């Protein structure tokens, strides 16, 4: 017996979580003497009302789509891939090496090559924890989170000692050659008369992210591998019964997950910075967890959740620009949303399930079901 209808699970729970997070955030903003409504307006105006605002929102969302999908695929195999951050860092290394050392003729060939390289690097970084989990039972949460640190240290070493150009101050690679520069939304959508997305970093990788949403959907719900991943995720014992190898599924799911996480680096490294910097991932690997949780590990949900978090990031930047809300409190607000939508999911769900149960019990006598109408 499903406790509540699908739409409530998919829409109502996240919505209520968001509202709760918004209320708490408003209290925080009031606490430091700012006007929460004005702040919200500022966020909406800055993130959604101008094309350049959208350019930033979509740029952040692109990151979160990749990492959200990465976490979601692993979730389907009941693995908690906390290592999206590290996999994205190493994916960035893959992008940088591909862009710096291969003479690409033009950007789209470069994008294909860099995508393959990023996915390969990310997947390889996920392979070790996956192998340890599958063969040795080392918990994937522990190993992936540890691999984040190793990735950061490795990247640090490579950037400082190997890839940093002579005389450069910051630990970053040289700028990628012109041929690898990806078209931004500005390049794609601006006309001479109407400049669009001016200066915004959103670029063609956003469409790659959308493509990945579609591919992941097909993978999970339309292919044999996806069927096996889901079956394994729901019940390892049943998977064994059906002749699905836990080792294979664990490794393959993590490779896909790591590959998707690695591809996130395309956006930041190849699309935006056009060189590899030390902190290119900026926590997107972790945000991906919240995105996947909120999106119920469904590509469409991930897309929507990623847009929401993109909005939060861009809106947060606007808040930092135009209000006196300190950067730390903006992080607090973003964290509240993550907390409510990701970690405290059951806090909202359980009472809601009870409500639905009690409504279903006596729907006819008092027509309580009619009251649910507006809520939809």
């Amino acid at each position: 017996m499903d406790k509540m209808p699908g739409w409530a699970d998919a829409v109502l729970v996240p919505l209520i979580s968001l509202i709760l997070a918004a209320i708490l955030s408003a209290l925080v903003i009031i606490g430091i003497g700012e006007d929460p409504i004005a702040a919200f307006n500022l966020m909406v105006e800055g993130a959604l009302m101008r094309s350049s605002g959208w350019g930033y929102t979509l740029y952040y969302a692109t990151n979160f789509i990749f990492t959200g999908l990465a976490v979601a695929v692993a979730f389907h195999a009941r693995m908690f891939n906390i290592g999206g951050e590290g996999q994205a860092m190493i994916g960035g290394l893959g992008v940088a090496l591909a862009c710096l050392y291969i003479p690409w003729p033009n950007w789209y060939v470069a994008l294909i090559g860099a995508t393959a390289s990023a996915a390969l690097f990310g997947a390889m970084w996920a392979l070790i924890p996956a192998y340890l989990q599958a063969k040795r039972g080392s918990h994937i949460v522990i190993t992936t989170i540890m691999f984040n640190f190793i990735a950061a240290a490795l990247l640090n070493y490579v950037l400082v000692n190997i890839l940093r150009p002579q005389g450069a101050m910051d630990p970053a690679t040289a700028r990628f050659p012109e041929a690898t520069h990806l078209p931004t939304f500005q390049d794609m959508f601006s006309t001479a008369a109407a400049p669009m997305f001016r200066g915004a970093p959103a670029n063609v990788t956003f469409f790659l992210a959308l493509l990945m949403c579609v591919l992941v959907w097909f993978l999970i719900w339309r292919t044999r591998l996806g069927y096996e991943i889901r079956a394994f995720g729901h019940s390892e014992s049943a998977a064994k019964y059906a002749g699905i190898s836990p080792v294979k599924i664990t490794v393959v799911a993590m490779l896909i997950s790591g590959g998707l996480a690695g591809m996130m680096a395309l956006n930041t490294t190849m699309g935006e910075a056009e060189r590899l910097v030390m902190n290119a991932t900026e926590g997107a690997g972790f945000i991906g967890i919240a995105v996947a949780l909120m999106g119920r590990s469904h590509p469409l949900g991930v897309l929507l959740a990623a847009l929401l978090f993109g909005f939060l990031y861009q809106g947060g930047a606007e808040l930092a620009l135009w209000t006196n809300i300190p950067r730390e409190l903006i992080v607090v607000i973003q964290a509240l949303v993550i907390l409510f939508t990701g970690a405290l999911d059951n806090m909202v769900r359980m009472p809601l399930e009870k409500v639905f149960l009690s409504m279903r019990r006596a729907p006819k006598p008092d027509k309580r079901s009619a009251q649910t109408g507006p809520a939809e």
Partner: protein
Amino acid sequence: MTLMTKLSGAVAALALTAGAVAAEPALIFDLGGKFDKSFNEAAFNGAKRWAEETGDSFREIELQSEAQREQALRRFAENGNNPIVMTGFAFGNVLAEVAPDYPETKFAIIDMVVDEPNVRSVVFNEHEGSYLVGMMAAMASESGTVGFIGGMDIPLIRKFACGYAQGVKAINPDANIVANMTGTTPAAWNDPVKGSELTKAQISQGADVVYAAAGGTGVGVLQTAADEGILSIGVDSNQNYLHPGQVLTSMMKRVDNAVYEAMTAGTDLETGINVMGIANGGVGYALDEHNAELVSAEMQAAVDAASAQIASGELQVHDYMSDDSCPALSF
């Protein structure tokens, strides 16, 4: 619906205020944050001094991500803020792209050269200031061994170290210079514990004067030097007061002055490369009541003489960043 109107009302009000404050200067801090006890904080102090003196206000933002660099620049520029001051070399690439889009806006970037007609590039001759404090260190040292503790290992800090070493060698060609870097990541700017450890290590190698060019890490260096009874040299701002009588001097890099001047100049900001050296008071050494006893007349005379020679161009201190090498010190 009523809520909507209310909301749009608020937006309008906000836009209005935004318009009203146009033409006020803006300051963008690097990822390290406003209160990094070093570079960014010095810049903030300069802006604060300007605000206090003029009674005007300025916009500021602490960045959260790399992508926000360009965003902050453009948003401030579109908002009419002028001039826009930013701290740190990391803005170089971005500013080079953004500046041409806003020819009416003046930008000032510190520690980096961006060759655009509406950009003022402020760079400091840290090697010259370091040369002076190096001379003082060599004269104050009894063991003939002096130390240098850098923050993050980047060419800029090597520039400090190289100038310092040249100063030391100028006084005592046989002097032994122990140089260490705290780390290779930005975390090295704020690791006083490691600074303290490095200081102890250098003391065990015989160093009796230690120069810290390491941002927040330097606090640990100065503390440990004071605890162990040796002399230390502060950096960026005047840190003599931290341990009176135990900080030999401080190498002053007047980021605050640079920001203050840029804001004072306002829209009339003079563009081009602005080299802040000994000649124009951009760098120097600190002398106040806290270290007056430590600096002998002889020492002061020697340093002032060198200072004058550098200012006149008579004495050339080698700049590490000019050729990525240092004649006085090997890294």
